[in-house]
């Protein structure tokens, strides 16, 4: 078969030297990286899966913990002596309009209803004179808890209450005439009346309802009425200008109590 071999060599002579060295090298370099891609992809997928599992596990744990805990409504209802007007007087609780002038309220102190367009400041404000109910109800709508006390509450007790209230957002206190009990706490739709300021239900009420009872979550407790005159500040019903008229009367809050009045 020597003849075939030399003929094949004749054919092979027709070949050029195909200079594919550089192109081959470039392709090999690229492929070597590409070959890493599956491993990199797997590693990435494993990482993503791990994160998903962690997040889901965390969520599940969180949900279980949440499921094991009562809602704020359940905690509020569990407080001995609390009145839930959402059940007993829903028509009142659902009144949320802005009105001007003197408004009358079914409950005393009021827990809900139409109210003045300005709210009483409730950033832990301690008022030493009565606030206008029309403003206070608006603060309740914003999620504040309003603590009222009778004038015959001993000064030490007033100071204790003030210490609890002071500087806590969405909490404010003021004296209130004609209370049937010494202390009355209000949140939107809820009320609790107690005789002693060291009653543990005060904290339970605040913990359950402060901010939670809000009808307008996120609404402010500042930028409202700062003085306590017992009557609403004189503003038209439609504050179409949107300008909040700051009261000119100096605030009477806190200083008297701090000095032991």
């Amino acid at each position, binding site marked *: *078969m020597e*003849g*075939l*071999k030399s*003929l*094949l*060599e*004749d*054919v*092979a*002579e*027709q*070949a*050029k*030297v*195909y*200079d*594919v*060295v550089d*192109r*081959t*090298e470039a*392709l*090999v*370099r690229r*492929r*070597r990286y590409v*070959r890493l891609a599956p491993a990199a992809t797997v590693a990435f997928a494993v990482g993503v899966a791990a994160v998903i599992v962690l997040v889901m596990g965390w969520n599940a744990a969180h949900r279980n913990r949440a499921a094991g805990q009562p809602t704020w409504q359940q905690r509020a209802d569990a407080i001995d002596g609390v009145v839930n007007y959402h059940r007993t007087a829903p028509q009142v609780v659902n009144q949320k309009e802005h009105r001007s002038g003197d408004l009358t309220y079914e409950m005393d102190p009021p827990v809900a209803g139409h109210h003045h367009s300005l709210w009483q400041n409730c950033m832990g404000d301690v008022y030493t004179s009565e606030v206008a109910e029309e403003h206070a109800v608006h603060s309740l709508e914003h999620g504040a808890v309003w603590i009222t006390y009778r004038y015959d509450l001993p000064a030490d007790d007033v100071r204790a209450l003030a210490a609890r209230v002071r500087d806590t957002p969405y909490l404010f206190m003021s004296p209130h005439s004609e209370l049937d009990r010494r202390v009355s706490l209000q949140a939107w739709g809820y009320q609790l009346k107690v005789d002693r300021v060291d009653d543990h239900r005060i904290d339970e009420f605040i913990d359950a309802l402060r901010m939670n009872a809000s009808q307008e979550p996120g609404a402010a407790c500042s930028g409202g009425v700062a003085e306590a005159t017992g009557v609403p500040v004189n503003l038209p019903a439609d504050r179409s200008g949107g300008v909040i008229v700051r009261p000119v009367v100096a605030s009477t809050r806190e200083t008297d109590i701090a000095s032991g009045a």
Partner: protein
Amino acid sequence: MDDGFRQFVVTRLSRLSRVAYLLTGDHHAAEDLLQSALVKVGVNWRRVRAADDPDAYVRRVLYHERISTWRRRSRMAEDSVGDPPEAAVRGDVADDTVRRVVLERALGKLTPKQRAVIVLRYFEDLSEVDTAEALGCSVGTVKSQTHHALGRLRALAPELADLIRDPTEVVTWKG
């Protein structure tokens, strides 16, 4: 990428180019074949270099690549070159150029596997065992493919028949 791959390719380029041309019979196809085979070798270069015989590995890749390329394109037009030209054949058979052309065209009529067997056995001078290893088939297959390939070449290029005799055949002279 200074791991000897480039050096390896440069030293083998000339010979591999000739094999690739023999396998394809076309410059573009030969270049493509060579490049894709070498890329496969390069990607696995560390393993290839560690192997006993890098050349055998490269050969295997080259021939497999050729056959699989052909399979991929089998539905397309084969590298058919038409019938061998009668006139040229009738002319001066001793003319090397004509004989080469005749063989090239005859090779073009073979299947890639038959063609590969011819190149491995009669150009690369490999034994049947080494050919079988290069093609990844049995020695028996190499034998039968060789037999068929030579038979076809003889039929396609009868004027070369005296050069293409199947050594496995028992030649009997009658009259």
